[in-house]
């Protein structure tokens, strides 16, 4: 069949720089985000957060709140229905924490909801919430994460065991000609999507429930809602047409959704529950702080002989999320002797979650800083050191990569950046008063394939609709899926409508792990081709068609018509074929990623021992290759030597991601990731008060994100070489790779500029004052 479909790159097709199809509606304010959904008769809820981090509620006085104007419901642990425990991430589920909200009088973290107040207006709800009186028996919280504190081994780390070893790392380290042993630390960070979460729950007369919720995956949120409320999934619909940024924090099921639904059921009216910006700091996870010990052993020529990477991440007492920082080191370089260890601290904080390049972002800061330190110790160029240790096959599994063009990334990047003009001695490059530094680092992210399904419908009136319950987090999913479908159908993209963001559409996993394009893209193509084939089959049997009797393999689709290759007179249109057949539309579905998903999700659900065995058993079928994205980051900084202020003045990332489906949206992902890396390196940090266990600045005033002035003219280049072993589109992921390595490249550039090695992020002026 594939031969039947024209696949040359056409205007707006795969690979074309088609501008974002939803860009106009978003910039004009016409896009309807979740909080904008008009819902008749809706009433308004607020969560009331606990001001203490640990202890019990000894008295809750609801009377004044209940009596306040417009108040309809004040739900606390004393009058809330008993809710179900949820299956959590570490057990293969979708929830951040097992314990449901308002379960009892126990306070496990500051910001934990102690009540839900519902009123006719949002102002009335907020006012009534301020009248709630709660007395607590406080206990001193455990909120300080430091190297001296207790840590435990997590149950699993992304489905793997927390301890991993190959070869004899300690022996090799002891015998190494050169050793680097350092500790690197990264802080507690938050996602801060510009759109905070808002949930609107609407019960229908037949007992079904519609939830408007900003989510990275409507299908998964639907399963979460169903589990939380004990409903069959078919009774639940989740709608999330637009997502104002997710970055991982909208990928998991949170208890606020349950509360909105419970309140709506109790009141018999739709309930809208927005989370405040401050509540976004305690409700949807965060990137936990890490303390990472890296030991490198190398020969005098820079060949790595040992790599030991131990990570501890600060977590929660009520849910497990290890920030898998050692995974980067497991695959980055060809080193025979390797050891990784992941530990977590159980603190009185809310549960962490995935945040852009979870694991790889902090892990690459540690390893790529250490590699720079090794290069300095050896007097070797940092790029040469990395290429000396480039891994022709995945060093951990021994499997060949579907493709790994790290060398080309470095070579192209070095040429574009002008790396040969770098004087290697620290403090040797200046621009007036300012110290100039150039740094580099490797980027790697092992993107995943998730189960995805899509449907394509070709209508007799000429319309073509392709759909999936996918999410577009601002990444460009809508645009590139339209391009993929248009190519497969031989149509210009404006003739294809792609629908997403509704759990009634075809089941698809959440957008995460840079999975969406590479998982859903093949499913969309399969569905589109299958639908087209149905029209072809009708045409070749249609006595009124000029295509009667043609071989399907000879027929091409172009511009809404079917044509016999080499014989343009034998032609018919899709619409005409369907009209004559008396068929209002044909429909076909496509799926992708189910085998790989079993390999991924199985171990998560079964735990590392049984799951590992399962993965091993199915891996020859599911994953003959190792797969990931690669890149080289280049950064120039200018440092004011008096003030220690660091400004990034140039940044360049060169990435190997396979086929670039759309250079505009891919570039946007990459430069966005680099901007994130600038924030991570220089600004972002969530402070927790050590004695009170509370976040000091849960807002965009105190938590510094890069402003435009902090982000220079960032450039991103793609090798754009199809990777046919990766999947039918030849595409890997682009969502996370952009941030990986940026913080290390900046730290390395700061060292090059100043001679000061900062191993603790962010690199703030106080660390460079000397």
């Amino acid at each position, binding site marked *: 069949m594939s031969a039947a479909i024209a696949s040359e790159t056409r205007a707006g097709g795969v690979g074309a720089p088609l501008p974002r199809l939803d860009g106009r509606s978003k910039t004009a304010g016409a896009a309807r985000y979740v909080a904008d959904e008009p819902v008749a008769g809706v009433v308004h809820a607020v969560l009331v957060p606990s001001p203490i981090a640990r202890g019990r509620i000894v008295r809750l006085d609801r009377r004044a709140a209940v009596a306040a104007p417009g108040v309809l419901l004040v739900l606390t642990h004393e009058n809330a229905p008993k809710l179900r425990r949820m299956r959590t991430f570490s057990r293969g589920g979708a929830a951040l924490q097992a314990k449901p909200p308002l379960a009892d009088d126990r306070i496990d973290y500051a910001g934990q909801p102690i009540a839900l107040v519902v009123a006719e207006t949002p102002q009335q709800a907020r006012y009534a919430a301020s009248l709630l009186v709660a007395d607590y028996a406080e206990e001193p919280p455990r909120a300080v994460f430091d190297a001296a504190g207790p840590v435990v081994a997590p149950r699993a780390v992304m489905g793997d065991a927390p301890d991993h070893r190959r070869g004899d790392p300690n022996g090799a380290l002891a015998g190494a000609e050169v050793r680097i042993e350092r500790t690197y630390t990264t802080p507690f960070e938050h996602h801060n999507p510009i759109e905070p979460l808002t949930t609107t729950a609407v019960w229908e007369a037949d007992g079904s429930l519609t939830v408007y919720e900003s989510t990275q995956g409507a299908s998964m949120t639907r399963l979460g809602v169903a589990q939380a409320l004990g409903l069959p999934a078919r009774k639940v619909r989740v709608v999330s047409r637009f997502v104002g940024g997710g970055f991982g924090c909208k990928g998991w099921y949170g208890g606020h959704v349950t509360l909105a639904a419970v309140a709506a059921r109790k009141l018999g009216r739709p309930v809208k529950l927005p989370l405040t910006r401050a509540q976004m700091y305690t409700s949807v996870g965060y990137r936990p702080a890490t303390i990472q010990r890296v030991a490198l052993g190398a020969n005098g020529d820079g060949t790595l002989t040992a790599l030991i990477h131990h990570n501890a991440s600060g977590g929660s007492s009520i849910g497990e999320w290890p920030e898998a920082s050692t995974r980067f080191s497991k695959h980055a370089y060809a080193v025979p002797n390797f050891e990784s260890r992941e530990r977590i601290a159980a603190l009185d904080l809310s549960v962490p979650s995935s945040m852009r390049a979870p694991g790889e972002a902090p892990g690459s800061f540690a390893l790529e800083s250490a590699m720079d330190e090794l290069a300095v110790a050896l007097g070797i160029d940092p790029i040469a050191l990395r290429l000396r240790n480039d891994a022709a096959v995945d060093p951990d599994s021994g499997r060949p990569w579907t493709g790994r063009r790290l060398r080309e990334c470095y070579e192209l990047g070095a040429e574009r950046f002008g790396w040969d003009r770098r004087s290697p001695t620290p403090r040797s490059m200046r621009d007036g008063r300012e110290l100039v530094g150039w740094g580099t680092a490797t980027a790697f992210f092992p993107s995943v394939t998730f189960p995805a399904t899509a449907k394509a419908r070709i209508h007799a009136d000429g319309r073509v609709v392709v759909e999936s319950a996918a999410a577009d987090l601002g990444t460009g999913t809508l645009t590139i899926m339209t391009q993929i479908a248009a190519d497969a159908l031989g149509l210009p993209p404006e003739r294809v409508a792609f629908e997403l963001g509704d759990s009634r559409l075809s089941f698809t996993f959440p957008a995460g792990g840079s999975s969406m394009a590479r998982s859903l893209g093949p499913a969309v193509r399969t569905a589109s081709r299958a639908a087209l084939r149905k029209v072809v089959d009708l045409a070749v049997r249609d006595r009124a068609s000029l295509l009667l009797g043609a071989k399907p393999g000879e027929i091409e689709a172009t511009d809404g018509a079917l044509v016999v290759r080499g014989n343009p007179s034998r032609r018919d249109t899709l619409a005409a074929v369907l009209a004559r057949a008396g068929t209002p539309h044909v429909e076909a579905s496509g799926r992708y990623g189910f085998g790989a998903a079993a390999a991924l999700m199985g171990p998560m659900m079964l735990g590392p021992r049984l799951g590992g065995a399962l993965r091993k058993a199915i891996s020859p079928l599911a994953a003959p290759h190792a797969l990931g994205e690669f890149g080289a980051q280049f950064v120039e900084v200018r440092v004011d030597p*008096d003030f220690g202020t660091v400004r990034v003045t140039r940044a360049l990332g060169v990435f190997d991601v396979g086929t670039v489906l759309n250079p505009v949206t891919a570039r946007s992902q990459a430069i966005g990731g680099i901007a994130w890396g600038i924030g991570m390196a220089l600004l972002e940090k969530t*402070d927790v008060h050590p004695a009170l266990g509370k976040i000091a600045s849960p807002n965009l005033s105190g938590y510094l994100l890069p402003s435009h002035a*902090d982000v220079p003219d960032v450039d991103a280049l793609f090798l754009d070489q199809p990777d046919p072993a990766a999947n039918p589109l030849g595409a890997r992921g682009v969502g996370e790779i952009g941030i990986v390595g940026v913080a290390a490249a900046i730290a390395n550039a700061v060292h090059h500029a100043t001679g000061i090695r900062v191993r603790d992020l962010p690199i703030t002026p106080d660390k460079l004052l000397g």
Partner: protein
Amino acid sequence: MHPFAYDRPNDLDAAIAAVAADPAASFVAGGTELLNWMKDGIRRPSLLIDLGGLSLAGIDETAGGGLRVGAMARMRDVAADPVVRARYPVLAEALLAGASPQVRNLATIGGNLLQRTRCPYFRETSFPCNKREPGSGCAARTGPHHLHAIFGASDACIAVHPSDLAVALLALDAVVVVRGRAGERRIPLDGFYLLPGDAPERETVLEHGEAIVAVELPAAPFAARSRYLKVRERASFAFALVSVAAALEMEDGVVRSARIALGSVAAKPWRAREAEEILVGRRLDGEAAAAAGRAAVAGAEPLPDTAYKVKLAERAVTRVLAEIGGWE
């Protein structure tokens, strides 16, 4: 949000009377601060009296050759005013270093002076804070406090004042003109703010019911040779770690008079008189600038997390003098 009443009178004395009559009433100008306090539960006024209906936005030259800037003049307009730019450059620079264009379009000169600390424990109401809730304690003392004071702190409070504008005004010998039921008072900027002592909730000498109506800038001989320097973590839209406003009167390369004020180091803009004295009568060169920098921080009393600010303040004073001297 708590219910409140709102009025926008056309008469200044009526506005003052309305606020004076109700201890929980408040004036509102641009609203970029007050509305946040109300949303966050930091303040719960019963009545808002909007000063926007009065004619308080003028920028006028005074008989003495100075400038009178109305309290309701917007940050944007003052920063762009040609007289301000020519005669009081430090003022324009400080205004442009503050906030974002959107905020500067709304925020007023009077409101800017009455903004309150960015101490996170003041802003986040579930923390104890003596400034917000007298007697509740100070979370900054026991928590991360790298943004806090190196001068003038007390056991009760270690917060700093965040205004860039106030620092520039201090270096310009500005006078705050306030009006209450008893009439008008003229308060030198240096006497306008209070150190926390044991009453950090009281931040200025303004009495309840008094409104800032204008800021007057005298025709000072040092005003035209003035600069503002702001050191911050983020390149834009961030409060200062440390800032410096400096204004020098020079004759043949020798300093005749000087004003040096530091920002974000104390609960008020901090006048560095010792640094000024060192400069007067001296040729402005690298050595003089370095000596002034050292003198500016001689009396600093840093906290555990703010020791770096001492170095930063010293170097910022030295740098701004170098910029004025023209060798940077």
